[in-house]
């Protein structure tokens, strides 16, 4: 089987993502037709057009940081005539959520692809080294104890701390065996699970909010979250993509990879760190959304093969599309459900179907 050509596959998946985003924006309590949605969406496209001088503030991880003299100026190249109400609904309510969903799905699927390749294990997903549990501890602590720091910042910090702890525990003499990493990750996840449960027991009135966060959600997303998450996710993705070939060679086994000129431990450290950051960025804004990072890479591997130079971007785009679609489902019912429930409820049966067809036996 010749690997499918890169460009058509990625263009197709990109087009599917755009189509899903637009279609998703037509859905809601007020139905808006596709043409209007498209115009409003194009109107919302902002292009960075240089820096404006003056005292501005930049929100970093939900914290307003005054950055004198540096703030991005956007130019909006499109200005179609759209009814104000429709424009507001699409641009201020639906699009932030949809775009954030796309970024989160993109990030989780990319991280899942990398983790499965890294661990050469079909069960690996982005949270395997404790990132999601760490984020959950941070977020639940923020909700329950109302510590005053923004929830997203707490979640991000918790995620990075947990991943770093797992890495340190599994590393000895500068070497990090993946099996040890995997087991340390499982142990830390279990431990953090206990911490979360303990906090939930003492949550009192905030219990409902905490549980809602834990289920994974995209409600009340803002452009501010998009502005922080988008560059973080793309930057991390760019680094992962540069290492796609190294990840291919790592699949041959670490000793083989070493014999082929890969600096194995250094490459593992970079992959682990960047995959953790991209996962943390997603989990911090959307909570623990399961199955995207597990199932999407498997499905795409069946379609495009194991070469990460095409698999990684293809998975990321498909993950974005999948999460946007799942979130559309989550919010289109009579009562909104957390998107994590939808991804698991849809993803698990689909995964089982694949298993029964015996096509998923290896990474």
């Amino acid at each position, binding site marked *: 089987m010749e*690997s499918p050509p890169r460009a058509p596959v990625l263009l197709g998946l990109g087009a599917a993502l755009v189509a899903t985003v637009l279609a998703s924006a037509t859905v809601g309590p007020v139905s808006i037709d596709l043409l209007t949605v498209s115009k409003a969406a194009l109107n919302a496209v902002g292009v960075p057009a240089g820096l404006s001088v003056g005292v501005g503030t930049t929100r970093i991880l939900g914290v307003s940081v005054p950055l004198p003299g540096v703030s991005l100026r956007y130019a909006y190249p499109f200005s179609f005539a759209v009814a104000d109400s429709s424009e507001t609904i699409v641009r201020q309510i639906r699009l932030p959520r949809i775009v954030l969903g796309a970024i989160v799905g993109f990030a989780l699927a990319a991280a899942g692809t990398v983790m499965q390749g890294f661990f050469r294990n079909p069960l690996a997903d982005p949270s395997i080294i404790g990132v999601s549990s760490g984020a959950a501890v941070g977020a639940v602590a923020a909700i329950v104890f109302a510590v005053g720091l923004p929830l997203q910042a707490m979640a991000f910090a918790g995620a990075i701390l947990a991943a770093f702890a797992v890495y340190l525990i599994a590393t000895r003499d500068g070497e990090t065996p993946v099996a040890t990493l995997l087991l340390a990750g499982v142990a830390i996840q279990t431990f953090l699970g206990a911490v979360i449960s303990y906090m939930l027991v003492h949550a009192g009135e905030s219990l409902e909010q905490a549980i809602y966060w834990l289920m994974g959600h995209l409600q009340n997303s803002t452009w501010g979250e998009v502005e922080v998450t988008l560059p973080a996710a793309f930057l991390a993705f760019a680094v992962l993509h540069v290492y796609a070939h190294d990840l291919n060679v790592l699949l041959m086994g670490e*000793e*083989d990879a070493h*014999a*082929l000129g890969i600096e194995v431990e250094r490459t593992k450290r970079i992959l682990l760190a960047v995959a953790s950051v991209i996962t943390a960025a997603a989990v911090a804004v959307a909570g623990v959304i399961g199955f995207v990072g597990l199932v999407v890479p498997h499905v795409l591997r069946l379609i495009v093969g194991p070469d990460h130079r095409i698999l990684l971007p293809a998975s990321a785009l498909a993950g974005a599309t999948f999460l946007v679609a799942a979130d559309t489902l989550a919010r289109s019912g009579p009562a909104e459900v957390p998107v994590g429930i939808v991804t698991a409820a849809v993803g698990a049966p689909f995964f089982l179907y694949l298993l029964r067809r015996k096509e998923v036996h290896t990474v």
Partner: protein
Amino acid sequence: MIRVDDVHVAFGDVEVLDGVDLTVEAGEFVGLVGPNGAGKTTLLRTVNGALTPDSGDVFVGEDRIHDLSSRAASRRVATVPQDTSVRFAFDVADVVAMGRTPHRSRFSSDPDRGARVDAALERTETTHLRDRRVDTLSGGERQRVFVARALAQDAPTLVLDEPTASLDVNHATQTLALVRELADESRAVLAAIHDLESAARFCDRLALVHDGRIVDQGEPADVLTTEALETAFDARGVVTTNPVTDSPAVTTLPSTTGGGRRVHVLGGGETGASVVGSCWAAGHQVSAGPFSHDDAARSVARTLDVPVETTPPFAAIDRATVEAVSEQIAAADVTVLADPVIDPAATVCRLADDAERLVVVESRPLAERNYGGDRGRERYESLRRRATVVDADRVPAVLDEKPGPERVLADD
């Protein structure tokens, strides 16, 4: 090109390499032979930089391999690993292209990649597999793909761990011939090879590894000896010369629980040769003769280091020889008459008269080998009456049997 200098490697308390010294020059193909667990793979892993020795140095060219980055090391040493299993559905061409990894820079493409991959596929006769998924190949096909990958790596030094382990005879020979060619193109090649005969045939030198040491190295014929089989491999066997390739031929035998009897073989020819061989293989202590110089049985006996009495062709058996053989027969538990030729003096019959127990093997009719007339035939027939007569292939088994019950009764 490769210089291994007093290398020690221990895994925990187990000393796997215990002071290994070895050099491989450019253009030289050195084979590592030795039993399982001797340390061959560990030595290869030390040479390609995967393992850092506890003490000692490995130089490849001018550089200490362990001081190099893995990129620099992999430009100097290409490795064909023992385990070529791949669980991922890469195409063969992709796997071979991975050999170009050390020549690739992160942000630009490798201009030689396509040409090198094509050439490597062609030389290993895997071009037809190019677009196949590597996880659907047979073990032998995969092994050749991994050799192609090492070729694409374009390194002056080649390290191979059992490159022919899962290849059929034809492909094993093709692959080693290719490796031989690669060495002749002035690469330094070090390979662990299980098949001793192939190793002897294609390598310039062999290094015999045993218990973490190189116990012998040199020309294949000097290293591969019956004693080496015994000391290093703990195997019973015999090293002869393959008449076609003129390289050592190794025959190993199963260890036996039977045997242990003293056997003398009289007679000769093809039948005698086969009886000497099979009794020796079954673990009996064999002596043989008298055989004439050009007798097949004599050359087998000589090869197996069996004491053998020899007579010049077409000459009467001299007194000294007769005495020597008599002594051997007297000492033997069993004497085997293998298609004996009866000379006018019926020497063989006289010798056999003294045997404690007689086994007769006949494949030619007596008339064809009796030059002793009626008297010769009578003497032979009388021997035959008290002997056990069996086919040649049954001899070792008969030797293991206890003497017949009538003998036991007679002793009572």
